[in-house]
C-alpha cells in the first residue's frame, strides 16, 4: 500500500467515524426529544383526563337518563322538555355544535292534508333532494322518503311497470310522474301492528315514530300498503356540516341503527306554519299542503273542485294524501 493509499483509508475511516458519531448524536438527540415529548404528552393527557372526567360523568348520566325515559307519547310536558334538553346537550358534548330540538305539539283545529298534481310533476326530484337534506336522512344508504315513479302513459297507474330509478332527462316523452311517500293514513295499519306503541297518529293527523321506543321489528313496514316506511339497516350517517340543526323530537332528529323512520310532513316545519320542504322545493307547484279543517284553504278547494283520488282506497286506510289532474 502506498502512502497515498494509506492516507485515503485513514481519511475514509475518519469520515466513517464522523458519520457514525454524527448518527449517535442524532439518535441521542432524538431519544431526548421523544422522552421530552412523552413527558409533555403525559402532562397534557393527565390535564385532559382531569378536565373530561366531569364531562364524561355528566354525559354518561345523561345517556343513562335517556335510556330509561318513557315513551314520548305518555311523557308529561316537563319530561318532554327534559329529554329534549338531554338530547341537545349530548349532541353538543359529542360534536361541539348546538342543535335545537323542538317538542311542539299539534296546533288546535289543524288536520294536515296533502295533494299531488300528477299533470304537473315533471320528475325533476327537487323534492327528494330537499327532503333528504331537511330530514337528516342517511347519506350512506341514500335513504329517501319520497319515491318518484316514471310510468308510461296509456297503462293507467301501473306501479309494476313504473321506473323508480330512472336516469334519463325528464320529463321523458310519453311518460308521467307520480310521487309516493307516507300518506299519513287516518286508519294507519302501521300503528295498530306496532308491538311497542312506538308509532302513532298525532291529533293533527301526522303519523310519527318515537325512535327511542322503536325496537326495529319492522312489522309496521310490512303492514304499510304504500311503502311509506324506511328502516336504518346500518348506523345512519350525515356529514356534520350537512346536519339540519333545526329539529323536532318526532321528526328529523338524528336516528340510530335499527330504527324505523318515515315522512313526518316535516313536523319541525309544518307545526310552525311552514310548508314541508318538498312543497317548497317543487318548481312546478305539483305539491300542495294545508289544513283540511279550514274550509277556505286551498287544499279544501282542490278536494271540492277537482277530481281527486287516492291509492288503494278499498283498503279503508283513508290516506290524507290525494292525487288530481288538471
Amino acid at each position, binding site marked *: 500500500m502506498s502512502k497515498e493509499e494509506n492516507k485515503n483509508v485513514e481519511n475514509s475511516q475518519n469520515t466513517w467515524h464522523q458519520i457514525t458519531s454524527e448518527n449517535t448524536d442524532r439518535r441521542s438527540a432524538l431519544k431526548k426529544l421523544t422522552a421530552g415529548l412523552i413527558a409533555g404528552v403525559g402532562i397534557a393527557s393527565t390535564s385532559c383526563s382531569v378536565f373530561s372526567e366531569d364531562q364524561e360523568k355528566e354525559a354518561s348520566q345523561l345517556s343513562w337518563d335517556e335510556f330509561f325515559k318513557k315513551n314520548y307519547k305518555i311523557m308529561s310536558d316537563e319530561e318532554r322538555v327534559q329529554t329534549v334538553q338531554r338530547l341537545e346537550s349530548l349532541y353538543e358534548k359529542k360534536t361541539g355544535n348546538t342543535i335545537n330540538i323542538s317538542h311542539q305539539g299539534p*296546533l288546535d*283545529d*289543524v*288536520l294536515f*292534508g296533502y295533494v299531488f*298534481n300528477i299533470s304537473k310533476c*315533471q*320528475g*325533476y*326530484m*327537487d323534492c*327528494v*333532494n330537499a327532503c*333528504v337534506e331537511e330530514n337528516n336522512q342517511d347519506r350512506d344508504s*341514500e335513504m*329517501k322518503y319520497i319515491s*318518484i315513479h316514471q310510468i308510461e302513459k296509456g297503462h293507467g297507474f301501473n306501479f309494476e311497470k313504473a321506473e323508480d*330509478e*330512472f*336516469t334519463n*332527462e*325528464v*320529463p321523458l316523452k310519453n311518460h308521467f310522474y307520480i310521487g309516493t311517500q307516507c300518506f299519513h293514513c*287516518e286508519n294507519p295499519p302501521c300503528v295498530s301492528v306496532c308491538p311497542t306503541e312506538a308509532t302513532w297518529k298525532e291529533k293533527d293527523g301526522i303519523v310519527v315514530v318515537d325512535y327511542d321506543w322503536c325496537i326495529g321489528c319492522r312489522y309496521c313496514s310490512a303492514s304499510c300498503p304504500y311503502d311509506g316506511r324506511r328502516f336504518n339497516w346500518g348506523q345512519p350517517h350525515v356529514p356534520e356540516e350537512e346536519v339540519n340543526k333545526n329539529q323536532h323530537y318526532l321528526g328529523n332528529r338524528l336516528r340510530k341503527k335499527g330504527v324505523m323512520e318515515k315522512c313526518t310532513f316535516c313536523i319541525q316545519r*309544518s307545526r*310552525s*306554519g*311552514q*310548508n314541508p320542504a318538498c*312543497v*317548497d322545493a*317543487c*318548481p*312546478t*307547484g305539483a305539491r*300542495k*299542503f*294545508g*289544513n*283540511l*279543517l*279550514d*274550509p277556505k*284553504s*286551498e*287544499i*279544501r*278547494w*282542490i278536494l271540492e*273542485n*277537482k277530481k281527486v283520488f287516492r291509492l288503494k282506497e278499498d283498503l279503508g286506510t*283513508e290516506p*290524507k294524501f290525494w292525487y*288530481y289532474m*288538471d
Partner: protein
Amino acid sequence: MKNYFKICSLFLIVALVSCSSNQDKEQKYHGNFEKIKALEKDSIEYEVKSTDLIGNTPLILVETKEVSFFIPERKSKIQAYNCSECHTKTIPELKFKNLTGKKAHDSIKLNHATLEELTCNSCHPTQNLDHLKSNLNAKIDFNQSYKVCAQCHSSEYKDWLGGAHGKRVKGWVNPRISHTCVDCHNPHSPKFESRFPAKLNTKKIEEIR
C-alpha cells in the same frame, strides 16, 4: 256442526269486544270527509302568520268575488324599471330611425305560442312601456301581470285562484300568499325545460355524463 258454530260465534264475540276496547278515546269517523265535516271551523286563528315567515317582501292583494290573497310585488324585481327611463320614445318612433348595433332586449327569445297568436305587442303597449296591456288595449300594471295571462289561460287562472295551480310562498298558514304566474313561468318562454333529475341517481348521472 253445532259445536263448530258455537265456537265460531264465541270467537266473534271475543274479537268484537277486544276490538271495541282497543279503540282510542278519540272518536272514530267513517273516513276523512266525515271527520273534516265534523271538526272544521269557519275562522281559524293561527299563532304564526305567513307574513311573519316571509319577512319584508312587499305584497299585492288579489281580490275576486270568491277569494282574496296576496302575491309578491313585482315591479321592484324588474331590472331597470321604469322602462321609460330608457324608452323616452315610443316604439313606432324608434322604428323610423335606422338603428344599428346591439339591441337592449336581444337576449329575449319569444317562445310562447306562435307569432301569429302572440308578439311583443300583445302584452307590451307600443306607446308607454311602463305597463302591460290587455287584448283590448286596457292598461295593466306590472304588479297585476296575471291579468294579462288570464285572458288566454282561463282554466289555469281559475285553478290558480282556487289554489290547484301554482305555489304558496313559504307557509301554509294564513293569510294566503301565492306566487304569481311570472314567479314560476318566464313569460317569454313559459314552458318548463327538460333536464336531469336533481337528486337520486346523481351518481349514475355523473357516470352517464
